[in-house]
């Protein structure tokens, strides 16, 4: 298929995944902000959100101080912020529009309908309670689109490039959530194990749909090292880094007809560190250091995918 078409599908999926994850992050942050001790240090909590999902400097230039309401507005319906849910849905839809030949009409209609709904929304239309509904709705639309894709699309190159975008983006987002949340959640070692802390780790798990999974896997109280193990190394957990890389490696194999490409090599290298890695070792080198390296390699992988498959002219 055309490299440009593959590029559109790759980014279409990345943007949808990004919209979903931004909704997840905001949802969980709002929930956490309701806790008294978090509310106290509210600014740093919302700064963390900005670091995950936006551009802190650009934000400060435009809005000044960091408040829950402003950050939420900036990341949901802000027209100028290219990372807002509004902008990512639009970008996903524009990519789909350019590739209407490669996707099914059901996929197009669903994504187009999502855009038509989001297009004219304003912050006051969401209101205070409406925000939670909005986040749920965005997640639902993302699930719906994935389901339609799964159920209607021919399993060809176009399908695989779309899937590839989903997993590359998801790995990036989950790593960011872990990295930033970890610092906020562990202000000092003495806090660990408190009731509040437990709640916060629970909230983090919920933000990646991992709360129930945690209990099924560990049958035990929530502990930071297990949470990170679940989200980094567990290959049965669909949003873990390991799962994302499993899928990425297999997709790259199919897309390159199992011929060696630099993208496949890079993905294999990252995959090996997750497949054979131990959580104890990761903590010894430092979780933040591990995630920083992971994010850099994931970015390099994305660039190499564009290169190996001639995605950009």
């Amino acid at each position, binding site marked *: 298929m055309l490299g440009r078409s593959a590029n559109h599908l790759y980014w279409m999926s990345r943007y949808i995944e*990004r919209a979903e994850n931004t909704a997840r992050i905001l949802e969980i942050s709002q929930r956490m902000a309701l806790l008294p001790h978090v509310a106290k240090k509210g600014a740093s909590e919302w700064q963390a959100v900005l670091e995950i999902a936006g551009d802190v400097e650009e934000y400060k230039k435009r809005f000044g101080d960091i408040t829950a309401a402003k950050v939420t507005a900036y990341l949901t319906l802000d027209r100028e912020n290219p*990372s807002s849910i509004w902008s990512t849905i639009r970008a996903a839809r*524009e990519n789909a529009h350019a590739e209407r030949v490669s996707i099914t009409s059901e996929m197009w209609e669903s994504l187009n309908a999502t855009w038509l709904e989001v297009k004219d929304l304003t912050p006051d239309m969401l209101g205070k309670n409406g925000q939670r509904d909005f986040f749920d709705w965005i997640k639902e639309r993302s699930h719906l689109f994935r389901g339609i894709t799964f159920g209607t699309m021919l399993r060809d190159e176009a399908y695989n490039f779309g899937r590839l975008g989903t997993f590359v983006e998801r790995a*990036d987002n989950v790593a960011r959530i872990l990295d930033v949340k970890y610092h906020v959640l562990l202000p000092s070692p003495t806090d660990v194990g408190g009731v509040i802390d437990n709640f916060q780790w629970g909230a983090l798990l919920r933000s990646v749909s991992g709360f129930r999974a945690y209990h099924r896997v560990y049958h035990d109280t929530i502990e930071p090292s297990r949470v990170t193990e679940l989200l980094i190394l567990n290959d049965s957990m669909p949003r873990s880094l390991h799962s994302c890389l499993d899928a990425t490696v297999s997709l790259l194999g199919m897309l390159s007809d199992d011929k060696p490409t630099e993208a496949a090599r890079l993905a294999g290298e990252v995959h090996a560190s997750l497949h054979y890695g131990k959580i104890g070792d990761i903590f010894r080198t430092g979780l933040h250091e591990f995630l920083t390296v992971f994010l850099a390699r994931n970015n390099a992988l994305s660039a190499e995918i564009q290169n190996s498959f001639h995605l950009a002219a």
Partner: protein
Amino acid sequence: MASAFVPLRVNGKARAAPAPVKKDAPVERDARPAPIPAVKAAKIKSAQVKAKAPAAKPAAAKAAPRIAAPKAALPKAAAGVHKPVAFDEMTSFAGSGPVTPEKVREVYRVFAEWQATVPAKEFERKRKEAELLFRRLGITFLVYGKESSTERLIPFDVIPRIFTADEWQIIHDGCCQRVRAINAFLHDIYHNQDILQAGRIPAEEVLINPQYRPEMQGLDVPGGVYVHIAGLDLVRTGERDFYVLEDNLRTPSGVSYMLENRNVMMRLFPDLFSAHKVAPVDNYPAHMLESLRGLAPGVSNPTVVLLSPGAYNSAYFEHVFLADQMGIDVVEGQDLFVKNGHVFMRTTKGPQQVDVIYRRVDDDFLDPLAFHRDSMLGVPGLLAAYRAGNVTLANAIGTGVADDKSMYVHVPEMVRFYLGEEPKLSNVPTYVLRDDKDRAYVLDNLDKLVVKEVHGSGGYGMLVGPAATTKERQDFAKRILANPGNYIAQPTLALSTCPTFVAKGIAPRHVDFRPFVITGKTQTLVPGGLTRVALIKDSLVVNSSQGGGTKDTWILEA
């Protein structure tokens, strides 16, 4: 082009993500408004309409115009009264009073009986349903605005326009003949120029025409086919009177509406459909693909692509739709490159050779090395690959020379010269103001005529005589005299009307018709076409940018 998208965040920094916007994409030439303007004063009241309009020969003309009398007298404005009497597709010349069964032409009899049983509310419901279907399918065209472009629907009218098999035969034979002659003409002027040497068409009109492409001189195109896809705009003025208003020979659009209108109609009115024997149009894409593949340069399994200006072109929906129906890729200029005289497209598995390009990009933008240097839409080196015979372009480069308004008047002569036949379809009488006699006549009759610029489009630089003030006409006369060669004039034709569902119920509205002629190893005219309708009462402007809509067109099988 730079890569279309960049990751929004690299190491936590957000970056702008530009969509692959190409707002400089030119609207295809075809997007001109219909050349015949509205006649403001034409309010037809049943009392005023007696029967067929009197033969309106310009008898009062002081100087006899050069034009031969048309086959049938045009029911245009009678002397002094600018109220064209239009032929109605359903009731012939019965006038605009209530439609009684005895007025209805045989071809509409079943429809009229069915219509009588359907309440107006039902039509409104169907109209809404159709609109929903079109919107869901995304059959939209782009309208450019200051800040953003919006997607609009072309209004769809739920009442079909119906032709008999006999009427279709006239259109079919006439269009095929005309396109055959045009292809012969294009081959000739890019080779020996016999027609110019014989003095049948003034050489300077061809050779200094900006659409004449010297680059095509002496080049043999596969099968001698220049115009693979032609869209001819026809108007009807009587029972068997069809006139060609315009030949669209560059990148004609509209065929997707022919196909989708049919789909929607079959869905909306299955009962009405089964009561008629409507000839199918669905095989248009198959014919088109066959024609494109058949003219590939000596390859057994040619790769065919559709070259589009991109997602921001107003006709992008059609590009995607046709490519999808033919199972070929839609490419943009940036997806193609030329190496060693061959054209390749950039695929995920590396370069793949392209053999046939169905291009929806105008000549000027095809190759920045040969034409507009700043075009981002084209492929550098494409002309060289084309001249080397390594790729087929459909339509060929340089077909525009045969379809501008100054060349239009010569098409009947092309038919006689190349085919030795009389034209089966007439031109609308056209006065060429370069000609002294024509000019004298036109200047005396400005109040009855429409004057247009030869190379004009978009309705600019046009005088609608009957609707203009005396002062406007006087001013325009001065402009004509300053540069007569730049103008032509035509009578204000009474386009036929067709029953159309409008706010007040079903009423006659003016229509035109664009069938599409495919030429490959053989010629094909799929039985159907695009009927455009002026939804505004008495308006003769069928163009979608000015309130025009479309209808499904039925050809009944004999």
